[in-house]
Every structure is written in C-alpha cells, then in structure tokens.
C-alpha cells in the first residue's frame, strides 16, 4: 500500500488501442503470475507483466491503451501489483462485460476507470483504436460504431477526477493538509 504510484486523472476522452482481451472470470493476478503478487518494483513488474500471454506486450503498449475483459473481470483474490504493472505501461482503463466487486472497489479506490460495457468483449478486436468517454461510458471505434456502458456514479466520477479516493478524501476531510512531517 505504501508503494502506491501516483497516477494523474484520465483525460475526458481516453484514446488508445485495445491492448488485450481477456475471457470470463479472469483472475487479475495472472497478469504477472501468482509468484510475483507481492512486488511493487516497477522494473521487476515490467519484466513479468503479461509474459505468459505475449512477451512483446510491455514494448507494444502505449499510454492510453485499454484492456478488455469478459464477465466478472477480476474474480479471485485480487492483489494490487498486477494493475500497478499495467498502469505503469500506460494502460488507462479497463472495459469489461462486468466486474468482480472486490476488484472493482479496490481499483476504483486507486482511480482507475473501470467501465461496465455490455458487448465489449465481442464488439472490439485486439489492436482496435478506441475513444473512451469514461464519464458517459461510451466506447467509439474508428468505423463510428459506439458501444454504451453504465456511467459511473457521481461519487465514483469524483474519485476518478481526483486521481483516486485518497486524494478526494484528503481534499474533503484533511484537517491539517500541510502537516505531513
């Protein structure tokens, strides 16, 4: 927890490519391998992330790219380092048919846009360019196709705009924000 990175809030429209499409009930720990789920070391994680799926992944991903999931994305006992590894590469959002509650809560706290978009797992292909208006939960493809998901609640929108729950809470509740000695 102390090793958390500081990520800026996303732009209004996230523009990038679909970096990968995962199946249903995907266990996020598999992104780096269960033997590595306690590391927050950036270089170490870069060497592990998605190696089992695509050894070129880390070199291929550009900031703004997104990953796509099926139903119940994040099922299992999610740890934080896999998403740290993906965000360090520039992954800017996760779009899925649905999310596992524990994963959804943990990563929303960290300010990651997680958008529930029915039809996303079959409506896009790896490598597609997407423009994601995360507040409206719309995903627009190059050919003009638009998929519509469930917009985040007002509270979650504010969490993401703040760059994570901790920053929002500090803005709302800190009594002596300068006192960090």
């Amino acid at each position, binding site marked *: 927890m102390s090793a958390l990175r500081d990520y800026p809030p996303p732009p209004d429209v996230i523009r990038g490519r679909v970096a990968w499409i995962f199946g249903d009930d995907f266990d996020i720990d598999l992104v780096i391998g269960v033997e590595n789920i306690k590391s927050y070391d950036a270089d170490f994680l870069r060497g592990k992330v998605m190696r089992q799926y695509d050894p070129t992944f880390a070199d291929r991903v550009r900031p703004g790219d997104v990953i796509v999931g099926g139903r119940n994305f994040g099922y299992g006992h999610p740890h934080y380092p896999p998403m740290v590894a993906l965000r360090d590469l520039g992954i800017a959002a996760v779009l899925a048919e649905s999310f596992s*509650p524990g994963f959804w809560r943990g990563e929303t706290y960290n300010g990651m846009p997680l958008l529930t978009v029915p039809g996303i797992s079959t409506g896009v292909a790896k490598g597609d360019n997407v423009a994601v208006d995360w507040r409206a939960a719309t995903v627009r493809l190059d050919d003009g196709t638009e998929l519509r998901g469930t917009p985040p609640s007002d509270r979650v929108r504010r969490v993401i705009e703040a760059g994570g*729950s901790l920053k929002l809470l500090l803005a709302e509740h800190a009594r002596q924000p300068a006192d960090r000695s």
Partner: protein
Amino acid sequence: MPSTIAEKILARAAGVDVVKAGDNLPVRPDYMIAYDFPGYTDVMFKQMHDDFGIRTLAEPHRYVVFIDHMLTKGTEQERQVHQVTRDWCEFYGIELHEARGIGHQVMAELGYALPGNFLIHFDGHISGAGAFGALGWGVRRDLLEAWVSGQIYLDVPATTRFELVGELADGVDSRDLVHHIIGEYGADGCAHQVMEFAGPGARGMSIDRRQGLCGMAMFTGAVSAVFEPDEAALAYASRVARTEFTPQLPDEGADYAAVHTIDLSELRPRVVLPGSARSDNTRGVDELAGTPVTKAFIGSCASGRIEDIRAAALILDGRKVAPGVELNVVPTSDSVHQQAEDEGLLDVLRAAGAQIARSSCDFCFGYQKPLQPGENCISTGVLNISGRMGSTEANIYMGSAYTVAASAVAGTISSAEGVARS
C-alpha cells in the same frame, strides 16, 4: 416501500427512511473493523494521522481492531508489527482485541455482529456477520474513507433471496451449500448483490454453519450475505450484546433480483479444485475420490467452529489419520478451543493423530507450516489460489470439515457421507 434486509439495514445506517437497490449514498457503519496487517492498518493509521491531521476520534467506539494474523513465529518482525498497532490504538483510544482468535469470529463473541448492525472491514469475510442478521461488507481500502469521515459512499445492492428447505444430510454442511450455489448460479451469480437466506432450512441451520456460509459470500460475487434473524440468532445476540440493537426482517413484497429455493436434503459433499472456487472447479467429492493428500486443514474464518470440530471428531473417533498425512485443526477462537477441550473433542482429535494449533489466521494464508512444492492439501480455508497456503507448486482442494476429516483418514479425497451413521 417494501424493503429487503440489506436495504433496511443500510437505510437505518444512512439515517434515511428508505433506500433502494441502485441508490448511491453515504452510510454510517456501526463498526469499522480491521485486523492489523502490514500495508493496511499501519499505513491507514499513518495516513489518518499524518495526511489527514486527525489527532482525536469523535467516536472511537466505532473503530475495532483485531490482532489475529502473524502470531505464530515469535519473530522480531511480528513483535514490531503488533507494537505499531498497539501504539496507534492506544493513541486513538480504539479497542484492540489481541490474540483471542480470528477476528471474524471474535467480533461475534464480543457482541459487535448484532442483528440489524452494519459492519465494514477491509476484508470481505466480514460477511460472516450475516449469520446474526447483521450486514458485514468488505470494502478494501475504502475503509480509510470511513475511518476519516465516519461514513462511506456505497451503492445499495440488489438482493437475491435463497429459500432453504429440508435438512442437510449427515456428512454434508453449509460449506457444501455455498459451493453448490456457485456451481449452480456461477461465480458471479450474485455479483454486487446481497444473499438473503430464509426458510425452514435456514432456521434449522446452526449459527456456526450460518457463519461459515455467509463468510464465503464473496465467491458468488456477492458483497455480503445475511440470514433473517430468528430465535437462535436473537438468543446469541442477547447473550453477547454490547449495545441495544434493532433486528431487521424483510418486508412482504420486497423487490428481489432473484429468488431461489434450495432443498438442503438434496445436497451432496462438494470439493473445489485448486485454483479458485469458480463453478467449473466445483465437483462432487466422488469425482475426485482417490486423489492423494499430504496435508489436511480444518480452520479459518469459514470453519473451525464447534460444529466443525464436532464433525471432525465424529469422523475421527476411533480412527487414525492416514500415514503420510498431517491433519492440522485450528479452532476459530480461544473460546471455541476451550469449548472443544471441555467437550472432549480435542482429545478425540489428538488420539487420531491430529495436531491442534492455537487460534489464528496463520494457516489459511500460508504463514504457519506453509505447504511445500508438490503437496496436496484438503482444506476448509477460504481460498485455494496458487500459493495461498505456501508454495505456488502445491495444490489446495477445498471442502467441508467432514470431507477434510474423512480425507485425512483415507489419505485420499474422500466423502464422509455415511460415516456419521456408521
């Protein structure tokens, strides 16, 4: 407007007349609970103090901390972790419960999990409080939001109702029910919802089994689970209550996402394959019969209660743990341990060759006697992902205390069905 139990509990905790599924609003938990664990409580306390500038708590009685992990090595690191927690709890005037057992059980014994109460924790197994008609919700790092503000923004969940009829057969328990539910309705069958248990089968189920069932709610995708509080729950609560409480029952005509009826008498023992509890990993015990095991474990916040230890003793009485198998039994709390001793159950287990350990969370997360590469463990623990109980090259199968005890005797995965009658 007719409401479910969860809606009524959340409305009361939010200080409003009515909430309905889909609302998002701030809710004030009765208790905001944590166990000390590096990276969680130490960081949260420091954030509260250094970053938020909070020096005193308006309502320290709403904060509860347990020390139940990292108790069994006796190392300097353990001592330091716990001392940090003691220091912060003393600074803020927070009640700390140290080494009395697994917090998710001790919170019930100490009267926090009362009918109608709303509890949060960073750990999702707080849902076990549903056995008493309380709503326990694991909110991960959002616990900090409640700690610094006294409230937490939540989406009011929809509810799926489970009408339980019939009685569990000998050698079958609520652990088999939860895996049956996952098998039938999927690992997201109750996603983002609350499971509400009612009916004669629910009323006939012991409190212990209700706790084990509710504590596993997350593996159906649910955020929590709750029983309609009945005489048994109210009797327990009245005995331990530290405050007054207001039991909540669902209203006639409440809106449910789904209603399922399950005949408990039709359930058979289930075992979950290594990896996760998802439905395609769920099997009948008979399908896995013969799979060799080297370790067997009865304990965790989802088992190890007196009913589970009685189940194990019933199977192990007059029998021996198979050569090459180590059976470890960890009562869920010190008071459960004492009761099991008083009932003579632990003598039965020891005579059979089982090893009894003092209550803690340490077996379940691979801290105490970690599994070695190539080992097969049959476990009542809450999780069987790779590496959970030690080596990532060990396999963890999950089942009920009956199944674990029977497998320990056989040396292979085995059903206890019929053994109880013999």
